[in-house]
């Protein structure tokens, strides 16, 4: 948006080229071509993703630019007039929709598109993005801490309104966290606008604080800083695998979700290589790779249960209306901010 502010046209091509050369032009040796790929995929998985891809395409080197969802989105928007990225691989679909609205995505129908669950693709034809895996909301409960405070295990979202939980719940701030936003938008879709806000009013009474990032509530629950963190299932499963006394709860009413998705940035000078990468990213091998961490993946038929991941996830995912969420995003966030993000509200 930064650059959108300035109504200047994309000029300075020379400068851009120089910038690209300056920033990314180093270290191109073994591979014929280097793709600059922006991603929000967890750092520990990036090497694996690149290595698997290179097993099939050793001639394309991936240059990762990784940061959290919000920052990568901001960065892409800021670079709108002189994009630095060739491909985005592993960013929230809602973020990609935002970029699509700005006209920054290159529509492309990758090979094997037909095998994807229809939920996992942009409805336009050809689609401007394709999904990889779903990223679902869940509640992380630290069993040790919950026992310490005699807290019952919540089964439903509405259970969280129980005053016993007062001061024992943490959730991400939807203004800064994609996870936070998918929670809020799912509640509004599940309970209706009025019911959703009433639910959040009640929940707010029990919230100890809102965090900036979406994974932090679960990590805080894992480390016992808080008994209950509203976060996403993938994070919970990882922490549980690391030995945290966690229960990952999928609320009965249904859960909000977003997906990690892939797209080509319009204007890339490496379109052929970018297409190769996107083709691979929707393929079977890639989906099996996503399945190592995520239970719900683009090619539903391939999905196998993931350790520590609640098996009922797929069935509980709500029929998420991304369009509605995207178009009402600023209104929802402003309303949320006015209601809960102010010191004036007594907690």
């Amino acid at each position, binding site marked *: *948006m*930064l*650059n959108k*502010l*300035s*109504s*200047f046209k*994309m*000029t*300075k091509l020379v*400068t*851009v080229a120089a*910038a690209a050369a*300056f*920033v990314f032009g180093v270290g191109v040796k073994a591979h014929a071509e280097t793709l600059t790929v922006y991603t929000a995929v*967890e*750092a*520990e998985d990036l090497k694996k993703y690149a290595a698997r891809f290179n097993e099939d395409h050793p001639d394309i080197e991936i240059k*990762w*630019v*990784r*940061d*959290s969802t*919000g*920052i990568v*989105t*901001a960065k892409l928007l800021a*670079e709108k007039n*002189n994009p630095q990225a060739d491909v985005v691989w592993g960013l929230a679909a809602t973020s990609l929709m935002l970029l699509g609205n700005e006209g920054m995505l290159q529509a492309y129908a990758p090979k094997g598109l037909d095998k994807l669950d229809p939920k996992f693709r942009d409805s336009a034809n050809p689609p401007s993005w394709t999904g990889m895996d779903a990223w679902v909301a869940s509640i992380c409960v630290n069993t*040790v*801490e919950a026992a310490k405070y005699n807290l019952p295990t919540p089964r439903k979202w509405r259970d969280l309104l129980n005053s016993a939980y007062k001061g024992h719940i943490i959730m991400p*701030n939807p203004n*800064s*966290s994609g996870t936070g936003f998918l929670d809020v938008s799912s509640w509004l879709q599940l309970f209706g606008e009025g019911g959703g806000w009433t639910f959040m009013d009640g929940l707010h009474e029990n919230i*100890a*604080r809102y965090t*900036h*990032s979406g*994974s*932090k*509530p*679960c*990590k*805080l629950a894992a*480390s*016992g*800083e*808080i008994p209950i963190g509203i976060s996403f299932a993938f994070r919970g499963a990882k922490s549980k695998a*690391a*030995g*945290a*006394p966690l229960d990952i709860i999928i609320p009965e009413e249904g859960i909000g979700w977003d997906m990690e998705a892939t797209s080509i940035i319009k204007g890339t000078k490496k379109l052929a290589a970018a297409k190769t990468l996107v083709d691979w990213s929707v393929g079977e091998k890639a989906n099996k790779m996503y399945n190592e961490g995520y239970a719900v993946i683009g090619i539903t038929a391939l999905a196998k249960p993931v350790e520590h991941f609640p098996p009922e996830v797929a069935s509980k995912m709500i029929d998420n209306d991304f369009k509605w969420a995207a178009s009402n995003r600023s209104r929802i*966030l402003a309303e949320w*901010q*006015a209601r809960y*993000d*102010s*010191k*004036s509200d007594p*907690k």
Partner: protein
Amino acid sequence: MSNAAALAAQPAASGIKPKLSQDDRIMRGFILMVGVWMTVTVLLPLYAMLSKSFENHDGVFTGIANYIEYFSTPALFYSIENSLFIAIVSTFFTITLAFIFAYGLTRSCIPGKAVFKSIALIPILAPSLLPAISFVYFFGKQGIINEVLMGNEIYGPIGIVMGEVFYTFPHALMILITALSTADGRLYEAAISLRASPMKTFFTVTLPGIKYGLISAIFVVFTLVITDFGIPKVIGGQYNVLATDIYKQVIGQQNFQMGAVVSVVLLFPAIIAFVVDRIVQRKQVALLTARAVPYEPKPLLSFDGIMFAYCCLIGFLIIAVLAMACYASFITFWPYNMTLSLKNYNFDVMDGGGWESFFNSIRMASYTAVIGTIIIFTGAYMVEKAKGFGAVRGTIQFLCILPMAVPGMVLGLAYIFFFNHPDNPLNFIYGTMAILVICTVSHFYTVSHLTAMTALKQMDPEFEAVSASLKVPFFKTFIRVTVPVCMPAILDISIYLFVNAMTTVSAVIFLYSTETNLASVAALNMDDAGDVAPAAAMCMMIVYASATVRIGHALLTRGLAQRTQRWRKR
């Protein structure tokens, strides 16, 4: 005489236009370069930010619409009150604690003063998020002594104030030690001979004597607190302050306009504090020039005992905060697996930036120290020693102290607006190491500049005149005399730049790219993602690096002192 009468008839009224020497031309060229540098790295970015705050999302000028929106959104403008509250409370505690500590170090006869002073300066080596992280391990839900808070949350104003006090303590201490060391012993002798009570002496002699130092310390701490980002980010919980609001607006919501508005709001208290501090500094200089007999404290068992106990307590607390961060960084999985391991130092598998960010920081800090010192010292020399050119020199002198008034968050955001503008020919440095170095140099310009000026003012003002009379170009004298003589100050500047470049978060948080991630930013992002222990580990790495360089600097300075003792000693 006829001779003179004839000459008087000549049109002597036409003024002399002094011919510029080669030296003059070179110096003026340098001064203009410093002017251009300050304009490009401070003024224009600030202007870009200011104008952004008057534009809407599409870049159309909308007057004060953004400001109206800001002040009609309670979630936003309540932060002003919060920021002021935190700043005032933290300043009160820091100044009180630091004053007593400084008083003990200067006005009592306690042993181990050098040790106490070294311990008290440790917080400077750490990024501001370190105390915040450490307090989580002390007072968080799983903290080892969280009962102390009697059920209160550490996440919020309590945590912020405690963190800020730790972080600003050494800054206040240094100013207060200087102020308390320059006391005039004669006044105390007079007070004793007049049989004034110790209390009366304190209020009639001590306080007036350090008044300017005290005011200066108050405003320095106030500015540091109100502009600090790391501590409220880590431990602020739901308690919003201006600095975190800028971050939320820009990074969380990509609302750059509102980020600019909050920046302008944050600029106000910072500028007021800056102006007051400048006025006070000027007066203080006048005070220090007076001749005085240094005050020599006399041993007094009870007083010294209390002071020693107090200094031990403060020293213990500072070390405890650091030790906790260090200890927590080795814990495998707090609190469920308390075995020691290096797991948290395996940065490469964590979101945040990996080990590369640590080495990036070392590189960035080294470049900042070297390039910054050269620019700042040379610039100060030109501004101080050039002849004529008064108006330009005055303007540049002002530009050189301006950065002190600009909070890091504001500078960083201003840099996005200015350098990322596609029409800016300097656009190519965006996202590179260069912009981090430039931003950091500018951010910490003022203190370095003033250090250089102080050293240069102590040089004999006639060195340049002598060189000119001997027809030696000024730059030879600069290299052969000025630089060697000012070497202690030059080393001080470079160490100051290095340590600050290692620990800063606020300005660079908006400017780093994946290629140039920094240790302090990585620590922040790891904490943000909930990886608190690895964040503590990264903070400790920063402390180790800063401390190593600081110790190296001390050894170097000592070596230099020995080598130059022959000509310096007097």
